[in-house]
Every structure is written in structure tokens, then in C-alpha cells.
């Protein structure tokens, strides 16, 4: 019979040790973690970026990824968006009774694999077991080092910036929703660590004013917040927004708008317009960046507003996502 998680795995006793030894320690093995101390002691740096995130996605596995890959991507991408180089990650697992051990094994394996890809070390972890029906949640913390010469923040957005997205919109959202609804299609989540894209931008000497990863709320929500913070107008061009035909059809079917759908492996970067072409080329040369393009510009026509120049030449005002959107997408 399929081995499942039970309350005894959260006891802190032998069953917990067995679980940690057979799954976590094996997959996450490193000189820091192998010491199995109460906390990890690691090397430091001048400017440190820190973030935390919780992952409750349902279903746990979906086309193109699972909660393990997702939690690494989500955490390192948050660090990267401030120009940091991700270094360390901690993870807290909250397992529900009844979770298949093989499922946990799978998730932890893809987490370890993604951490290796993203170049981060998992240095500490914790496991708890609660009542429930076989799901799992993961909470992470991430630490990155910020090179002295980098200053990436919303305050630097200014008139004359170009808006660049690193690829197609809405894939993760559509993959999750499609799976939940049992709609058969070829859409896969784009969950990916964006380190190579970010480092390519800096290697090309692009003066990146700000970057955000396009997650819940979608591109419109992210850019509306930036327009407000920087008191500028961001004008997007509908025709330039990259969306795959599959996601476009999916959205048409369900009345969804890719502008408000989440990704887990896409960023939007605002850079001086004269550097925009070079920035697009840099992103396209990096892993996960081949569909990058310029989608709009910053002006001062209506401070704080996000506008969309529509395909037929109208102007549409965009607000942040109202209401719930899709719950438990990450």
C-alpha cells in the first residue's frame, strides 16, 4: 500500500528523523545542511536582500512543474528583482496527514533540482504535520547578496523608460486553471528561476531602473503599482503584448484577460529607452528569455495611470486586479 504521512511524522521523534534522513537530507545535502544544527551559519556580504514566501498551490503538481520547483522560483525571483544574487534558502514544510510519501519525495526532488539550477543552497528546514487531506504547504525564506553598484527600485522609474517583458503572459495561471478544470490543452506553467536573465542584463551594462516578477495580479497589477509609486504614466501597446495562441484561446473561452493573469517565470524590466534594444537582446540570449520584447513606454501624460493603447487605436485605463482572481495559484 502507498505509504502516507501521518501525525507521527511530525512528532519530532524517530519517525520525523527517518523522514528527514530519507528525503530532505538526501535531496538537500550540503556542507551547511549536513551539520544538522539548530541554525545554519553561513558567509555574509555587504548589502543583503531577504524575502519570504508561502506556497499553497493546488494542485501540487501541474503541467510544467510542481510546488517544489515553484517555491524555489518564487523565492529566488523575488531576490533577483532587487538585483541580488540569490544565495541561501530555508524551507518549512507543513504536511497534511494522508500525503503520499512518494509525492513528498517527488516535490523535494524537484525542489533540490531547481535550487541547483538557480545556484542557491538550501541551508535550513523544518517539518510539521497537521490534520487534513493529503496536501502540503511550503514556506521559504531567501537571502541574496546585492553587488554594491546595483540599485534597482520602483523609485527609479522615470519618463522615457521602456517597458520590457521577458516572455509570454499568463502561462502559469492558465496551466493551473486548466488542470483544475480538467481542460485538456498544451499549456505548461512557465515556472523558472530568472537568474540568467537578470545577470545578462547587468553583464550588458544595462542601467536597470526597476524589475518585478509578474506573479499574482498579472502585468497590469504590477505596472499600475509602479505607475503609482513613481507618479508616471505607463502606456502599453496591446499589439505588442506577447501571449501564446494557446493561452489566448484559453482566455477567450473563459473570459479571462492575460493582463491580469499570473506567471511564475517572467519579469518586467524598466530601462532607459536608448538601452531598450540592447536589453531585449540580452534577455533573449538568456535561458527563459527568448520571447522578450518591448511592450510600452513611460510618459507624463496622466501621472499614476496605466494605459493600454488598444489594437483598434482606443485608450483603455487599467486598474489593479479587483476581487479574488484565481485563489491558490502559488
Amino acid at each position, binding site marked *: 500500500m502507498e505509504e502516507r504521512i501521518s501525525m507521527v511524522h511530525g512528532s519530532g521523534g524517530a519517525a520525523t528523523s527517518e523522514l528527514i534522513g530519507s528525503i530532505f537530507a538526501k535531496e538537500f545535502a550540503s556542507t551547511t545542511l549536513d551539520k544538522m544544527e539548530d541554525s545554519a551559519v553561513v558567509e555574509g556580504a555587504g548589502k543583503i536582500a531577504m524575502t519570504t514566501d508561502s506556497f499553497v498551490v493546488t494542485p501540487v503538481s501541474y503541467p510544467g512543474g510542481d510546488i517544489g520547483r515553484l517555491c524555489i522560483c518564487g523565492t529566488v525571483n523575488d531576490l533577483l528583482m532587487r538585483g541580488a544574487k540569490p544565495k541561501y534558502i530555508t524551507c518549512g514544510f507543513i504536511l497534511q496527514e494522508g500525503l503520499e510519501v512518494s509525492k513528498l519525495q517527488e516535490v523535494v526532488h524537484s525542489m533540490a533540482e531547481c535550487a541547483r539550477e538557480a545556484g542557491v543552497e538550501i541551508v535550513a528546514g523544518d517539518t510539521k504535520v497537521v490534520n487534513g487531506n493529503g496536501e502540503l504547504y511550503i514556506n521559504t525564506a531567501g537571502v541574496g547578496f546585492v553587488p554594491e553598484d546595483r540599485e534597482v527600485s520602483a523609485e527609479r522609474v522615470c519618463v522615457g523608460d521602456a517597458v520590457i517583458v521577458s516572455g509570454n503572459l499568463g502561462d502559469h495561471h492558465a496551466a493551473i*486553471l486548466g488542470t483544475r*478544470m480538467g481542460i485538456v490543452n498544451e499549456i505548461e506553467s512557465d515556472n523558472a528561476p530568472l537568474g540568467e536573465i537578470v545577470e545578462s542584463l547587468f553583464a550588458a551594462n544595462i542601467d536597470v531602473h526597476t524589475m518585478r516578477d509578474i506573479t499574482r495580479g498579472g502585468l497590469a497589477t504590477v505596472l499600475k503599482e509602479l505607475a503609482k509609486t513613481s507618479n508616471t504614466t505607463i502606456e502599453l501597446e496591446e499589439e505588442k503584448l506577447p501571449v501564446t495562441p494557446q493561452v489566448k484561446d484559453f482566455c477567450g473561452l*473563459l*473570459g479571462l*484577460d492575460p493582463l491580469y493573469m499570473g506567471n511564475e517565470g517572467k519579469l518586467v524590466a524598466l530601462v532607459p529607452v536608448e538601452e531598450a534594444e540592447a536589453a531585449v537582446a540580452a534577455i533573449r540570449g538568456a535561458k527563459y528569455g527568448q520571447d522578450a520584447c518591448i511592450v510600452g513606454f513611460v510618459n507624463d501624460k496622466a501621472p499614476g*495611470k496605466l494605459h*493600454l*493603447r*488598444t*489594437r*483598434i*487605436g*482606443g*485608450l*483603455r*485605463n*487599467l*486598474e489593479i486586479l*479587483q*476581487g*479574488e482572481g484565481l485563489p491558490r495559484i502559488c
Partner: protein
Amino acid sequence: MSYVENVAEYNKMSLAEMRDFLANYDGPEIHIMEVCGSHTAAISKNGIRGMLSEKIHLISGPGCPVCVTPTAYVDRLIELAMTPNTCVVTFGDMLRVPGSKYSLSEVQGMGGRAIMVYSPMDIFALAEKEPETTFVFAALGFETTTPVYALLLEEVIERNIENVKLLTALKTMPGVIEYLCENGASIEGYLAPGHVAAVTGSDLFKPLAEKYQIPFAVSGFEGEEILEALCGIVKAYQKGLCEGTQTSFAQVMNFYPAVVSAEGNLRAQELVTKYFQATDAAWRGMGIVPGTGMELRPEYEKYDAGSKALVEDNKRNKACCCDQILMGKMQPQQCPLFGKVCKPLTPQGACMVSEEGSCHSAFASF
């Protein structure tokens, strides 16, 4: 009356020509009502209002299903959600529509059970998993959605499913357009609903066009399709003015010929007639409009979860002007609550809830 089967073909204007025509129209003021909520949303999404001359006014009509549903229906859904072993199943919008005291999403936190689905057919999986619970689908909508509920019912009957019911608030278009023509604001042209017409056929609008001497343009939902239909209406209006005879304004133009035929989808119409019959319906702001609703036929009454006589419409906020707005007598911005207490996250009336609602649409524009 001129009846044009496929206007788009012989009267093709380029996008630039249409934009130019609509931006520079300088004739008498013309008010065009889009009756369908999907058109309201598409007009806003494409930024069409800002592309029109000041002489062309677009007015949203009563075509957003949740907007025209009186509070008594929402209250009944809430009552069902709070009933032991009962669960309401609905599309997302309905969860947040205010009843006289609460919305479904508010009573979810008070022990009420309501589940959001994207397809009505999802109810079968729910019903199978929990045979002891009765699942009630909030079946509201226009001619477009009614065939889906008919299909749902057909499956319920074929599979002998005991724990699925419908709470209906189904409406039909022609009667309410007639009501508006008799009682509403002055409208010089109708952007006719493409999805409804796909089911009913564009002939549905012929008697109205003739009786009230108004042009109707059946339109799709892409920006360019809407511009085409608007151009068609303005031109028909101009032609009417020019000819100046008693009958020269009446036109039904089909700008959506790929999807809409004159007679519509006969199979869908048959299916609807099998399970539903016409009835009087209560509309927010308009009260009971004879013959504008659909209800289950008496032989299927056991699948009904108490849909009759849900006519009360007690506004949660007395100052809400949804009723006036739905009839095109008032613009959303003129409501004292608009953008102040009434916003998409704190809707005081149904028109601010749905993406298809005129207030939500106006809030998202500028």
C-alpha cells in the same frame, strides 16, 4: 424595412476609415444602447468611448445577467446556502452580488456553502462526491445561457441524479428592449447582442426595428466588429434623417454573419422549449415585465429550488441608482455612491460587481 443579411461584406470600411468616420461625426446627437453585458465589457476593454465624436453617446442597457436580477433572488440563494446539506453552485460574479443584507461570499464565512465553477457541468462531479448534499445551480442569464441549463437538466434526467436542482432567473431580450422603447431614455440605435442572436437568430429584432423605427446592428465582440456595427447604426440613422419618411429608420443589420444567421440555432431553441416556458420576469428597476422570463415547465418542477415569485428588490444601500442606470436614464458617474463607497471591492449594487456591469465598466475607464 431594409434587412441586410451580411452588411460587412458589401459595406466594408477600413479600420482607419471607421475611426475617422466615428471620430468626426457631426450630425445630430445619437444615443446608441448596447444591450449586452459582453458588449459593455468589450467597449471598455477596447477603449471605444474615447474614439467617438462627442455627438455619439454609448449607453449600457440591461444585458448584464447579475445586474438585472432582483435582490429577492440573491436572498433565496443565501437562504439555500445556509440550509443544512445544501450547497449553491454558481459562476464567480454571483458570489459577490449584494442581496438585501448579505452576499453569498459574506455568508460563506458564516457557515453558508457556495462554490464557484467555470462550467455548469462541474456540478455533476460535486453531486457525485456528496450524494447527501443537494447542489443548486444559480441558473441566470439570457437566451445565450439557457440552452446550457437545458443540457444540464437533460443530463440530470438521463442519469437520474437526485441531488441537483436549479434556481432560475432566466431572461429574454426582445420583451425588455420593447419595454425600454416604451419607457426608457431616447435611443436612436441598438447594438444588438451577438451571442443572443446566435441562438435566436437576427430575425428576433425585426419586429422591434419596424415598430419603433430604430436601426439594430447585430455585432460580434472584437473591437473592430463593434466599430463596424457602430458605423452601420450611425449611417442608418443618417440615411433615415436624409430620407425623412416614416419607415426609413428601421433596419436590422447583421455584422456578425460568421456566427449569426437569420433563424438562429434551431437545435438550441428546441432544447430550451423542451424544458422551459415563457413567464413574466422581475427586472431590477423595471419591476415585472410580462413575458420576459423563462421558467421550468411544470413537468420538471421537482428540479426547481424555489424560483417563483422572487420579485422583491430591496437595495442594500438606498442611494444606489442601479435601476436608473440599467434603463439608460442615468450614467454611472451620476450616482452619488459611484467611486466613493461603491467600488469593485465594495459594491453597493450589482452593476459594480460584474465585469459586464455598466458601473464596473465605467469605474475601470476614466
